[in-house]
C-alpha cells in the first residue's frame, strides 16, 4: 500500500513529518515500510500561463503558434505540437531559463522559422506521469504567473507499506490514518460526504442469485456526466499511489478505493442489456472479455455480474469490456458490492489476474462500507464530471454483518503481557483504535467495528494492546525451563557427520526431486514412488528413493567445473509410497546417509597422488564409520540396482540390512555422464545412530609379540573376509590378523591370500611350543574353509 504523506494529512494532524520517524512508527505498528520515496519539484522556472491565442504555424501543419500570458508585461510566443488546448486554457509554461527534469534547459529558439520563447509542458516532460499525448491543461482558474508547483502537493513522501493479510483495513488511506491516530492518540477526520440527489429510481434493476458469493450489492445511478480527464490533484494522488489515471469516472472509483478501501466499479448504464444486473455463478463454458482485453473462460466457481446478454463483469476482480465506461458515457451505474473473500482469491488465482480490487476483496473489505463508498464516489464524480445522482440507492444485503462483541478479561491480557496492564490502560489503548470499550472491574466488553475482521477473540485484543503499548516497552526475561540437550540418536548423528568430515568429505544438500531415469537408477522397489502433484518441472516430479542421484549430479557438475577429485556426503530423507512406521498416515520417509567419491582421493600430492577412488574407497569409508560408531558391520557381495555388480557389498549390522558400498554401475555412470569410477555408499541412518557400540578397555599387554606370515591357496569363491574371521576366532592369543597379499595366478587362476598374524599373551612371554600350537590352530581353521597352507 503506497501512502502519500500529504494525502494522509487530510485525515490526521501528524506531530511530525519526518519520514524516518514515521517509517519507524509504521514498523512499530506492524506495517513494515518496504520503501520511502520522496516526491519533489523536479524543475525550476515553470509558471502558470493562460493561452491568449493559438493559431497556425506559417511553415508547418503539425505544430501551432501560441501566445501565452504568464503575468509578464506582454504574452510570450511559444510553438507547441499539442492540440488538446485552445485559447483560454491555463497551462504550465517553461520559459527560457527554466530547467526541466533531467537537467533539460529551456532556451529561446526558432522552430521552422518562428521564434519560440519557451515550452508548454506535458505530464511526462515534468516527470508527473506517462502522458505525452498533449500538454497539461489546468482546471479551475489557477493564478497566472504563479509557480506551477504551487498547484501540486509537493514536496511529498510516499511510504510503501507491507500490509499483512489479516489487515484489509490498512489497504486504505483512512485505515492507515486510523492506525497513526491510535499510535499518536490524535483525532481522525473522516471525509465529509454530502450528496445532493435528484428524485427518481435507477433504471437498472439488480438481483443477487448467488448470495453465497455476494454479501451486499450497493449501486447508484448518476445521470448526465461529462467524461474527461480528472483534475491534476487527483491524477497526482493516483500517480503517487501507483495507479494510472484514466478518466474522471474510472479515476474516481480508484480514488475512493484508495481513500476508503472499498473497490468500486462504474458501468455505462446505457449499455447494460435489459436494464438488469444479476450476480450469479458462471456457467461452464461461458466466456467474458475483461477490461484488459483478455477473453476468459469461466467456470462455475467464478462469480459474475450478468446483464441481459450474459456475463459483463468478473465480480470483484475486473470489469468486462462490454460495459466499460468510455468517453461517450453519459449515465453511470456506480457499483460498490461486497464479495466472498475465498471466492475472489480462488478466481483471481485461477485466472492469474490480481487487481487492486481483488487484492482488497480477498483480504476482506468492510462489509458495511459499501453504501458510504458508493456515496463518496458519486459525490466526487458529480464534482468532477457533473451530472445528477438519482435519489434511490440500490442496496441489497444478502448476508448482514454485525459488529463482533468480545468479552475480554483483564487477566487474559496480564497472563501474556504482564501485570502492568490493568483494566484502565487496556481500555485506553483499545479505545484509541476506535473500538467501543466498556470496562467493568476486571473485564471489558469490546465492540469491534466491521472493518476489523481480524479481531474476533480475546487473544486478538491482547495483540492490539501489546502493539499499541509498543513492543519496545516490554522487558527481556528468560523462562526457567528444564534442562535441554541432544538425544542419544542426535549425538550419534553428529558423531557420524564429523566422522565423514574427518574422512575429508564435504556435506552436500540436494533437492529431493528426481527424474524418472534418476529414480529408476537406484530403485529397489519400483512402484513405491511418491510423486509431487504440482511439480516445478514435470521431469522433476518424483521424490527420491536414494540420495545417490543427487550426489552423482553433484559429482558430474564438479568434474565439469574442473575439480580433480570430488568427495561428498549427504544426510536426508528418501520417500516410499508405503506407511511410515511412526505415523501410518504419511509415506515412509527414512533418513539415509550417502557418500560419493571420485578421482585421486586421500593424502598425497601432484608428484605422488593418492589412489584413485573406487570400490575399495567405499569399503574403507564404511570400515571407518563402523569403527567410529563402534558397530560391527558385516559385508557380503551383492548386486543392488545402480551399483557395480561385481564390486559391491551389502552391509548388515547383526543381520539387519544397513545398506551398500561399492562403485557405480558403468551404465549408471553413463547416465550421469561421469567417465571415472565413483565410490558410492548409502546407508540407513536409523541403525547407524540407534546405539553406538560400547567402549570398554581391554588390558594392554606388556609382553612381547610374535609376528609371522602364512600364505594360503584358497578355493574359488571363498571371501577373504571369511578366512580372516575364521582364523581370528581360532586363537585366543591372536592380537591382529591382516591380509597383506591377495594374488590370483594369471594362468592357473588359483588365488593365494597371505595373512600376517600377530600373537601376544597378556601375562607371559609366549614359548616356542605355544607359538607352534597357535600356528597349527590357525592353519587348521583355514583348512576347514578349504584354504591350504602353501609350502614356504
Amino acid at each position, binding site marked *: 500500500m503506497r501512502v502519500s504523506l500529504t494525502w494522509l494529512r487530510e485525515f490526521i494532524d501528524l506531530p511530525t513529518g519526518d519520514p524516518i520517524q514515521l517509517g519507524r512508527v509504521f514498523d512499530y505498528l*506492524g506495517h*513494515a515500510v518496504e520503501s520511502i520515496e520522496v516526491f519533489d519539484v523536479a524543475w525550476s522556472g515553470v509558471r502558470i500561463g493562460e493561452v491568449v491565442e493559438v493559431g497556425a504555424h506559417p511553415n508547418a501543419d503539425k505544430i501551432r503558434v501560441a501566445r501565452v500570458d504568464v503575468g509578464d508585461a506582454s504574452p510570450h510566443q511559444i510553438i507547441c505540437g499539442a492540440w488538446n488546448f485552445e485559447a483560454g486554457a491555463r497551462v504550465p509554461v517553461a520559459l527560457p531559463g527554466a530547467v526541466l527534469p533531467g537537467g533539460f534547459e529551456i532556451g529561446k529558439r526558432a522552430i521552422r522559422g518562428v521564434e519560440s520563447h519557451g515550452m508548454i509542458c506535458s505530464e511526462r516532460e515534468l516527470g508527473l506521469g506517462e502522458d505525452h499525448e498533449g500538454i497539461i491543461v489546468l482546471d479551475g482558474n489557477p493564478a497566472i504567473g504563479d509557480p506551477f508547483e504551487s498547484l501540486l502537493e509537493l514536496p511529498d513522501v510516499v511510504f510503501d507499506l507491507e500490509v*499483512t*493479510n489479516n489487515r484489509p483495513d490498512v489497504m486504505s488511506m483512512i485505515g492507515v490514518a486510523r492506525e497513526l491516530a491510535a499510535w499518536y492518540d490524535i483525532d481522525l477526520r473522516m471525509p465529509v460526504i454530502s450528496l445532493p440527489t435528484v428524485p427518481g429510481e435507477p433504471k437498472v434493476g439488480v438481483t443477487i442469485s448467488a448470495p453465497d458469493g455476494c454479501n451486499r450489492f450497493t449501486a447508484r445511478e448518476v445521470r448526465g456526466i461529462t467524461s474527461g480527464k480528472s483534475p491534476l490533484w487527483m491524477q497526482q494522488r493516483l500517480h503517487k499511489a501507483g495507479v494510472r489515471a484514466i478518466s474522471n469516472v474510472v479515476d474516481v472509483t480508484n480514488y475512493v478505493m484508495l481513500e476508503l478501501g472499498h473497490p468500486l466499479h462504474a458501468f455505462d448504464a446505457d449499455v447494460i442489456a435489459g436494464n438488469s444486473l444479476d450476480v450469479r455463478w458462471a456457467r461452464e463454458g461461458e466466456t467474458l472479455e475483461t477490461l484488459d482485453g483478455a477473453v476468459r473462460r469461466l467456470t462455475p466457481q467464478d462469480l459474475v455480474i450478468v446483464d441481459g446478454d450474459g456475463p459483463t463483469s468478473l465480480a470483484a476482480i475486473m470489469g468486462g469490456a462490454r460495459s466499460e465506461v468510455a468517453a461517450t458515457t453519459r449515465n453511470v451505474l456506480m457499483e460498490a458490492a461486497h464479495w466472498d473473500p475465498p471466492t475472489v*482469491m480462488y478466481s483471481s488465482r485461477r485466472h492469474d489476474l490480481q487487481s487492486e480490487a481483488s487484492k482488497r476483496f480477498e483480504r476482506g473489505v468492510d462489509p458495511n462500507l459499501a453504501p458510504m463508498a458508493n456515496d463518496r464516489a458519486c459525490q466526487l464524480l458529480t464534482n468532477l464530471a457533473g451530472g445528477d445522482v438519482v435519489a434511490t440507492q440500490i442496496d441489497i444485503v444478502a448476508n448482514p454483518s454485525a459488529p463482533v462483541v468480545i468479552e475480554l478479561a483483564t487477566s487474559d491480557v496480564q*497472563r*501474556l503481557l*504482564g501485570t502492568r496492564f490493568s483494566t484502565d490502560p487496556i481500555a485506553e489503548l483499545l479505545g484509541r483504535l476506535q473500538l467501543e470499550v466498556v470496562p467493568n472491574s476486571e473485564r471489558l466488553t469490546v465492540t469491534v467495528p466491521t472493518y476489523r475482521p*481480524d479481531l474476533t477473540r480475546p*487473544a486478538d485484543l*491482547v*495483540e492490539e494492546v*501489546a502493539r499499541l503499548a509498543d*513492543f519496545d516497552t*516490554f*522487558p*527481556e526475561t*528468560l*523462562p526457567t*525451563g*528444564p*534442562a*535441554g*540437550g*541432544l538425544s542419544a540418536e*542426535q549425538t550419534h548423528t*553428529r558423531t557420524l*557427520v564429523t566422522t565423514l*568430515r574427518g*574422512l*575429508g*568429505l*564435504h*556435506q*552436500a544438500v540436494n*533437492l529431493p*526431486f528426481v527424474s524418472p531415469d534418476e529414480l529408476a537408477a537406484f530403485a529397489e522397489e519400483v512402484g513405491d514412488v*511418491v*510423486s*509431487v*502433484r*504440482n511439480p*516445478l518441472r514435470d521431469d522433476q516430479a518424483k*521424490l527420491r528413493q536414494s540420495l545417490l542421484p543427487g550426489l552423482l549430479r553433484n559429482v558430474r*557438475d*564438479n568434474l565439469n*567445473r574442473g575439480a580433480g*577429485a*570430488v568427495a561428498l556426503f549427504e544426510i536426508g*530423507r528418501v520417500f516410499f*509410497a508405503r506407511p511410515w512406521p511412526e505415523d501410518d*498416515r*504419511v*509415506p515412509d*520417509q527414512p533418513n539415509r546417509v550417502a557418500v560419493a567419491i571420485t578421482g585421486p582421493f586421500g*593424502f*598425497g*600430492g*601432484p608428484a*605422488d597422488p593418492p589412489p584413485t577412488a573406487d570400490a575399495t574407497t567405499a569399503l574403507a569409508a564404511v570400515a571407518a564409520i563402523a569403527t567410529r560408531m563402534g558397530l560391527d558391520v558385516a559385508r557380503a557381495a551383492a548386486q543392488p540396482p545402480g551399483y557395480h555388480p561385481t564390486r559391491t557389498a551389502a552391509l548388515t549390522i547383526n543381520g539387519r540390512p544397513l545398506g551398500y558400498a561399492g562403485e557405480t554401475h558403468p551404465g549408471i555412470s553413463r547416465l550421469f555422464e561421469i567417465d571415472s569410477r565413483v565410490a558410492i555408499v548409502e546407508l540407513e541412518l536409523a541403525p547407524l545412530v540407534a546405539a553406538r557400540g560400547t567402549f570398554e578397555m581391554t588390558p594392554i599387554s606388556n609382553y612381547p609379540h610374535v609376528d609371522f606370515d602364512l600364505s594360503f591357496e584358497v578355493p574359488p569363491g571363498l571371501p577373504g573376509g571369511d578366512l580372516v574371521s575364521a582364523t581370528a576366532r581360532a586363537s585366543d592369543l591372536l592380537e591382529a590378523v591382516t591380509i597383506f597379499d591377495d594374488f590370483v595366478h594369471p594362468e592357473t587362476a588359483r588365488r593365494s591370500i597371505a595373512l600376517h598374524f600377530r600373537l601376544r599373551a597378556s601375562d607371559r612371554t609366549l614359548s616356542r611350543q605355544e607359538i607352534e600350537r597357535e600356528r597349527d590352530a590357525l592353519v587348521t581353521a583355514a583348512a576347514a574353509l578349504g584354504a591350504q597352507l602353501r609350502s614356504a
Partner: protein
Amino acid sequence: MEDNRPDSTTPDVDESVDLDAKLDEMLLDLRLPDPEALQRELDRIETSEDLAAFERDHLGRKSVIARELSNLGKLPDDQRREVGRRIHEVRLDLQQRIAHRHASLATQEQAGRIAAESLDVTVDYRTFPVGGLHLIQQVIDEVSDIFIGLGYKVADGPEAELGWYNFDALNTPPDHPGRLESDTMYLDYGKPEDELLLRAHTSPVQARYMEQHDPPVYIVVPGKCYRNDTVDASHLPVFYQIEGLAVDTDIQFSDLKGTLAEFARQFFGPSTRVRLRPHYFPFTEPSAEMDASCPSCDGGSASCRVCGGSGWLEILGCGMVDPNVFEAVGYDPNEVTGFAFGMGVERVAMPRYGIDSIRHFVDNDLRFLEQFPG
C-alpha cells in the same frame, strides 16, 4: 700390560737418577710419530673414509705404535713401565686427535646433508583431504546448541506431512492462500482429504510434539521445508527453517523477547540489539518479526551491503502461541501459555557470510563448500 715398576716420582733418589738416564736413552730410541706432524696430516683429512684409513695406519695392528707396544715385552722390567706409559700417552693423544677430527667431520657432513635435503616449505607438495559440514548444517548446529544451552531439546518430524499438521492444527484459515497449489507442493499419496504435502514450514513439528508430550515443552526443530517457488537468487523450492517452541504455565511475551535477544547476542555478538515488530502469522497472537541490529555496520552505514543501510536485519518470525493451536493439540489454553519462533537458516546465513545467492546452498559446488570448512 703388567707394570711393576715403581712410579718415577718415588722418593728413591739414588736409584731414580740412574734409571732416568737409562730411560732417556731408551725413549730416544722409540720411533714414535710426531704429534704435530700427525695433526697437520689430520687437518687435511676431509672424509670419514680417509679418517678411518689414517686411524688404521697409525693405531692399527701394523702401525708404529702397535709395533712399539709389541716390543715392550722385550724390555727389561725397570724400563717397560715407563716406555709403556709413554707409548700409551702418545696413543691416547692420537686417539683424542682422531676423535676430535671425527666429530668435526661428522658435524660437517651432517651440515652438508641438511643443506642438500632442504625443502621449500612454502610449497604444498602433499595435502590431506579436508572435509566440511554444509554451511546450513553448521548454522543449524550452532543455533541448536545456543538453545540447548537455554534448556531446549531438538525435535524432528516428517517432511511429507498431513495438511492437518501443516495448516489446520496451526490455525490456518481454510481459505488461506498458502494452501494453494501455487504456494504448497502436494503429494499424490493417501486419502485426498488428508492433503499429503511437503511441509511448508517446520511448524507442523510443534503440533506433533505437543500431541505426544505434556507441557512443559522447550524444543527447537531444524529441518527442510518446501515451497512452490522457482529457483532464483533469493528463492528455492527447498529451504531450511529452525522452529522454536516454549510452552509452560507462565510464559509471557517478555520471555519471548528475552529468549530471542539472548539468542541474537550469542549468534551475532554480545552487543547485538533486537527489536520486535508486530506482524501476522495464523499460529501466533500477538505475532512479531524480529530484527537484529546489523552485525556489520550496527546501523552506522547508509550504504551497508549487509543490511541495506537500515541498520537492522530481519531474522525471524515469532509470537505467542495462538490458543487455537493449543486446543488443536489437546492442551488447555487456560492452563498454558507459550511462544514460538521460526527462522530461515539461509536467510540468517546469507548476510553473515556475505552469500549473494541462495542457489549456492544447493549447488554443492566444491568451490563454495570449501570456503566454509566448518
